[in-house]
C-alpha cells in the first residue's frame, strides 16, 4: 500500500498546480522547485488546508480528498504531521505543551500526553528545552521542537515545508544531517518540500522537480544530479545543459549552435545515440580551456569561445564563455593567469566524449 498518492489539481485564479505523485511507506520524497512553483500548495492540499479542485488524494489507502466522489476528510482528522516553514510553534505554550498539543487534541489526558511529549523530546535530544517558551529557542532548537510536535501524534504521513530555510548556513548543515537521521527512522511516508538542492540530494530517496505547477523531472538524487531535465535543475546542480537533436550517427546538433559527440548510456548497439531530441549535460570542471586550437585528436569536442566574465567559486574560478555553445567552465586560478583569461579573451574549449552525458529529452 502506498503511504500517499496524489493525482489532482489545485486551481488558484491564474495559477494551477496539476500533478501525480506517490510515496511509499518509509520513503522520503523531496519536492524540489523554485519559489512559486506550487510546492507549498501541494503540501497544503495533502494536509487538507487547501482542497483540491480536481482529482484525488489517498493517504495509506484511504481517500481523503476525492473531488469526483465528493469526499473530503477535514485536516484535523487526517493524522498528517506538518513541519511548517518558520515552524509555527505556539508562543503561549511551553515546548513540552507544544509537543503534547496533538495528543491533547485527540483526547489524551494531560499527564500522559506530557509524558509522551517528554519521550519525544528525549528522542530528539532536547530534553532540557521542555520548560522553555518558543521565543527562548534558537532556530535549530525550534526546528527540532517542530519536528517533535509533528511526530508526537504518530502521524501516517510527515510533511516538511522548507524545514531548514529559516536557519543560518552553519546551523543548517548540522541540522540537515540530524534531520536526515530522524526522517529515516520514520516509518510512514515523508514529503519534503525544498528549494535547496542540497536538502533534496542529502535527505531524499527520490526527487520530484516541480516547476510552474507541474512535474518536470523525477528520479533518484543521483539521476537528477547527473541528468537534469530542465535548465532550472541544471543550474541547481551546477551543470551545463543543452537541448539538441541527435542525428543517429553519434553527433548531437545543439539548438544553441555547435555540435557534441558523447557517450550516453542510452546508446544503440553501435555505441551511437539514437536519433531524436536529446539533452546534453557537461560538468564545468570537465571542460578544458586552451589558448589555441588543440591539435591532438583525443578530445572530440572542440570549439572557440569568447570569455564573457569570471567569478570566484570557492577555490576555483568560473569562466562564463560565449560561443556555440556557450558554457560555464571551472578552472584553477593558476590557469587564469597562465592563459591570460580576461573579459573578451578569445580561447578554445574542449571536452572529452566520455565526459559528455547525452540522454533523451522526455519533456519534449
Amino acid at each position: 500500500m502506498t503511504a500517499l498518492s496524489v493525482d489532482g489539481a489545485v486551481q488558484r485564479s491564474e495559477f494551477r498546480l496539476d500533478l501525480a505523485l506517490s510515496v511509499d511507506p518509509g520513503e522520503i520524497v523531496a519536492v524540489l522547485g523554485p519559489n512559486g512553483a506550487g510546492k507549498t500548495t501541494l503540501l497544503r492540499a495533502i494536509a487538507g488546508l487547501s482542497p483540491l479542485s480536481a482529482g484525488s488524494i489517498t493517504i495509506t489507502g484511504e481517500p481523503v480528498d476525492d473531488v469526483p466522489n465528493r469526499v473530503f476528510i477535514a485536516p484535523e482528522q487526517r493524522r498528517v504531521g506538518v513541519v511548517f516553514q518558520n515552524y509555527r510553534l505556539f508562543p503561549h505554550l511551553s515546548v513540552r505543551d507544544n509537543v503534547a498539543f496533538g495528543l491533547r487534541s485527540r483526547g489524551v489526558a494531560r499527564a500522559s500526553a506530557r509524558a509522551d511529549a517528554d519521550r519525544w523530546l528525549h528522542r530528539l535530544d532536547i530534553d532540557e528545552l521542555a520548560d522553555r517558551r518558543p521565543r527562548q529557542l534558537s532556530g535549530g532548537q525550534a526546528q527540532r521542537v517542530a519536528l517533535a510536535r509533528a511526530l508526537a501524534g504518530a502521524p501516517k504521513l510527515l510533511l516538511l515545508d522548507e524545514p531548514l530555510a529559516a536557519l543560518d548556513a552553519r546551523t543548517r548543515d548540522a541540522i540537515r544531517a540530524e534531520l536526515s537521521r530522524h526522517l529515516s527512522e520514520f516509518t510512514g511516508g515523508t514529503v519534503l518540500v525544498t528549494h535547496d538542492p542540497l536538502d533534496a540530494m542529502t535527505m531524499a530517496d527520490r526527487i520530484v522537480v516541480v516547476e510552474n505547477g507541474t512535474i518536470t523531472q523525477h528520479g533518484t538524487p543521483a539521476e537528477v544530479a547527473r541528468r537534469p531535465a530542465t535548465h532550472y535543475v541544471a543550474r541547481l546542480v551546477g551543470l551545463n545543459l543543452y537541448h539538441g537533436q541527435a542525428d543517429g550517427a553519434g553527433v548531437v546538433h545543439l539548438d544553441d549552435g555547435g555540435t557534441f559527440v558523447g557517450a550516453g548510456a542510452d546508446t544503440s548497439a553501435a555505441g551511437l545515440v539514437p536519433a531524436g531530441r536529446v539533452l546534453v549535460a557537461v560538468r564545468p570542471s570537465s571542460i578544458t580551456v586552451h589558448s589555441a586550437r588543440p591539435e591532438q585528436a583525443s578530445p572530440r569536442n572542440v570549439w572557440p569561445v569568447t570569455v564573457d566574465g569570471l567569478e570566484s567559486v570557492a577555490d576555483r574560478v568560473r569562466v562564463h564563455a560565449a560561443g556555440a555553445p556557450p558554457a560555464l567552465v571551472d578552472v584553477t586560478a593558476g590557469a587564469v593567469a597562465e592563459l591570460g583569461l580576461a573579459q573578451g579573451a578569445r580561447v578554445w574549449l574542449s571536452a572529452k566524449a566520455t565526459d559528455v552525458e547525452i540522454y533523451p529529452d522526455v519533456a519534449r
Partner: protein
Amino acid sequence: MLGVPAVLGAALLVVPLIALLVRAPWRGLPRILSDNEGLTALRLSVECATISTALCFLLGVPLAWVLARTQLPGLSLLRALVTVPLVLPPVVGGLALLLALSRFGVVGQYLQRWFGLGRFPFDTAGVVVAETFVALPFLVLTVEGALRAADAELEEAAITLGASRLGVFTRVTLPLVAPSLAAGGVLCWARALGEFGATITFAGSYPGITQTMPLAIYNAFESDPPAATALSLVLLAVAVVVLAALRGRWLYAGSTA
C-alpha cells in the same frame, strides 16, 4: 507657538482634578464614606459593573469573532451598528432601551406577557442592561482587532495537530488574544462603572436598587455638596487604579511573541 494651547489643554484636563483634591472634605471623609448611602451606592456600582463586564465577555467575544473571522453578508453594516453606542449620547441610549424593553416597549411587551419581566428596567437588572449596552462596543472593538491580528498560521498548525474548531479557539486563539481580552475587560468595567445617562433614563435612580455611584454623586450634589465631592474622590481613585492597570506590563505580555 504650539506651547500656549498645549499648556491650556493640559491645564483644562488637570486643573479640575486638582480642584477636586483641594476641595475634598478630607476631614469629613471617613464619616461620609462610612455613611450607608455612599457605601450602598459604591457596592451597587462595583457589582453592576462587574456583572456587566462578565456579560460583555459572554456576548462580546463571540460577536467579535463573527466580525473578525466570518464573511457573512451585511457584516460591515453590523460592525457599524455595533459601534453606534460608542458615539451615541448615553441618554439617547437609555431612552432607546426604554422604548425597546419597558413594559410597553417593542420587545418588552412580550417579555411582560410571556415571562412577566415587565418591571425589570427599574430594577438592578436594568442597570446591568444599560451598562452592558454602553460598554459592549469597547470589548467588541478591542477583541475584534486582536482577533484580526492573531496569527491564522498558528490556528492552521493546531488544525493539522487534530484540534477541533472549538479546540483551536479555546486553546490557541483565545490565549493569543488574552492581552486584548484583559484590556477590553478593563475598558468595559471602567465604562460601566462611570455610566450615568443611560442608567438614569432606563433604570431610574432608586437608592439601593438602581442608584449607582455617578447617580448618587449627582443626587448628593443638590443636597450635600461635600458628600458629592467625597464620592467623586472615590471614583477618581478607581480611575487612577484602572489607568495604572492599563499601563502595566501584564496587558502587553505575550503580545509580542
